C-alpha cells in the first residue's frame, strides 16, 4: 500500500431529508471534523446521532445538504480525488449464495480481474484473517465472528486507501468482540492504515483509535475531538492503564449527559 496522504475535512456538514409528510428528518445536524491519513479515527455517540450517516457521506453514498466536504492531499496541500474506500458492516452483508472465497473475491471480480488472479489474492486475504481452510464454506456455515472476519478480508483485499468500519463488532457476543478488537488493533498497528470506525463502544474506540470524535444525541453534532495518547501496541491490558480510565471517564461523562438529555427530550415530546 502506498503511503496514505489524503485527509478528509468536514466543515459544518449536515444532512436533512425532506419529508413528504410532517417535519423534515435531520439525519446529521452539524459535523466539523477531520480524518487524517495514516490514522484511525473513531466516531462515537448515542444511537440515532448520525454516526452512520456521517460515514455514508464520507463514502459518497449520501450527499451532504449543508456544509463542505473536502479531500486534501497532505503532501501537496491541494484538493484531491475521493480516496478508494471499503466498508466492513455491522450486519456483515456477506452474499449468502457465494462461498467465502467468492465473497472475498467479489470486489476484484467487479473490477474485471481474471478468476485465477482474484482467487489467489482472496486466498491471501483469507489467510490474513486466519480463515484458511474455510474458502469453500457458505456464510451460513460460519459463526458470527468468522463471518465478520470474511467481511474484513473482503474489504482489505480491495486495498482501500481508507477502511470504513460501521459498528463492525456490534452484532457479535462480548467474548468474540474482545478477540476481534485485539486482532483488528494489531492489524491496524502493523499496516499503518487509515480507518474510520463508527462504534457504540468507548472501549473499542480507545483500543483502536488515534482520535475519537464524540457526537451529541439527535440531532447529531460533533461535540469533542479527543486524541488518544495511549502507547501502542494496545490490547485488553491497555484497559488497566490510568490514562485509559481517565479518557474512558471523560467520554462516558459526555455521552451520559447526551443520552440523559435525549431521554428527557423524547419523554417530553
Amino acid at each position, binding site marked *: 500500500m502506498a503511503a496514505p496522504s489524503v485527509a478528509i475535512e468536514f466543515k459544518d456538514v449536515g444532512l436533512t431529508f425532506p419529508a413528504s409528510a410532517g417535519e423534515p428528518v435531520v439525519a446529521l445536524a452539524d459535523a466539523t471534523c477531520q480524518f487524517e491519513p495514516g490514522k484511525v479515527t473513531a466516531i462515537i455517540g448515542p444511537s440515532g446521532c448520525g454516526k452512520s450517516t456521517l460515514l455514508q457521506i464520507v463514502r459518497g*453514498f449520501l450527499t451532504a445538504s449543508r456544509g463542505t466536504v473536502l479531500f486534501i492531499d497532505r503532501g501537496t496541500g491541494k484538493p484531491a480525488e475521493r480516496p478508494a474506500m471499503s466498508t466492513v458492516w455491522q450486519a456483515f452483508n456477506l452474499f449468502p449464495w457465494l462461498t467465502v472465497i467468492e465473497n472475498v473475491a467479489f470486489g476484484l471480480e467487479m473490477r474485471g480481474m481474471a478468476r485465477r488472479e482474484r482467487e489467489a489474492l482472496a486466498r491471501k486475504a483469507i489467510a490474513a484473517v486466519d480463515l484458511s481452510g474455510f474458502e469453500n464454506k457458505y*456464510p451460513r456455515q460460519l459463526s458470527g465472528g468468522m463471518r465478520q472476519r470474511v467481511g474484513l478480508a473482503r474489504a482489505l483485499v480491495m486495498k482501500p486507501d481508507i477502511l470504513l468500519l460501521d459498528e463492525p463488532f456490534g452484532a457479535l457476543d462480548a467474548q468474540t468482540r474482545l478477540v476481534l478488537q485485539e486482532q483488528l488493533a494489531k492489524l491496524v498497528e502493523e499496516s499503518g492504515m487509515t480507518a474510520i470506525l463508527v462504534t457504540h463502544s468507548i472501549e473499542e474506540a480507545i483500543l483502536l483509535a488515534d482520535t475519537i470524535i464524540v457526537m451529541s444525541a439527535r440531532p447529531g453534532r460533533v461535540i469533542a475531538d479527543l486524541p488518544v495518547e495511549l502507547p501502542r501496541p494496545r490490547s485488553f491490558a491497555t484497559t488497566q492503564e490510568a490514562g485509559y480510565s481517565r479518557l474512558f471517564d471523560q467520554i462516558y461523562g459526555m455521552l451520559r449527559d447526551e443520552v440523559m438529555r435525549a431521554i428527557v427530550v423524547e419523554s417530553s415530546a
Partner: protein
Amino acid sequence: MTQHETKSILDDPRVLGWGSVVLVIAFWEIAARLTGVNSLYLPRPSQIVVALVDMFTTGGLLADLLMTLYRIFAGFAIALVVGTLLGVWIATSPRVRAVADMWIAALYPLPKVTLIPLLIIWLGTGGPFMLTISALGAIFPILINTVLGVRQCDPGLVLAARDLNASPSQIVHKVLIPSAIPSIFAGVRLGLGVSIILVVAAEMVVGKVGLGARLYLAGQILETEQVFAVLIVLAALGITVTKIQDQIDVWLGRWRLA
C-alpha cells in the same frame, strides 16, 4: 424383523407414499374382480396396464407424449426468459412497475383457458397457438415471483456490492437476480403446473395429437382403459416434474441449508 426395524421403515416417507399406491391398486383389482363391475365404467388395473402397453407399442402414444412435452416445455422456456427479464425490469424501475401493476392486476386473475377461443381466432390451432397458451400459463407466476424476489433483496447486500464498486448492471446480475432465485424458482414450479394444465386442456379442445387429444378421443369412443392409461401417463409426468423440481430446489438452496 424387529419392532425397531418396522418402525424405521414406516418412518421413510417414500415407503409410505409408494406403499399406499400399491395398496390402493391391489384393493381396486380385487374389488373389481369380486364385484364384476362393468369395465366400461371401471376397468381393472391389469386391463389398464395392458391398454397402456398396447398404446405405447402400437398405438403411437409415445409420439403424443413427446408432442405434449414439447408444447409444455417450449412455451414454458419462453415464459421463463421473458418472465424473468420483465420481472427484473419491473422490480428495478418504479415507472415500469406503475404501468405493469395495472396490466398484471387485470390479466393475472383471468383464467387462461378463457383465452383459448380468442387465441384460436388469432393463431389457428397449430404450433404457435400451443406455445402461446403454454407460455401464457407460466409467465404470470414467474414474473410475479421474480418481482417479489428482487424487491425483497436485502438492501444491505446492494449497499455492500456498491461499496465493492459494482456497477448498476453488475448489481442486477450479481446481487438482485441471485438473491431472487429461490423466489423465481417458486414461480417456476407454479408456472410449469399451469402450463401442463393449459396445454392438455387446449389439446382436448383442438388437438389432433398430444395426450389431451388422445384422452378426449378415447372418452368419445368409450375406451375407458385408454382414458385411464392416458391419466396414468399424465400422473407420471406430474410426479417426474415434481421430483426433478425438488432436486433443483435442493441444489439451488444449498447455501441456505448448509
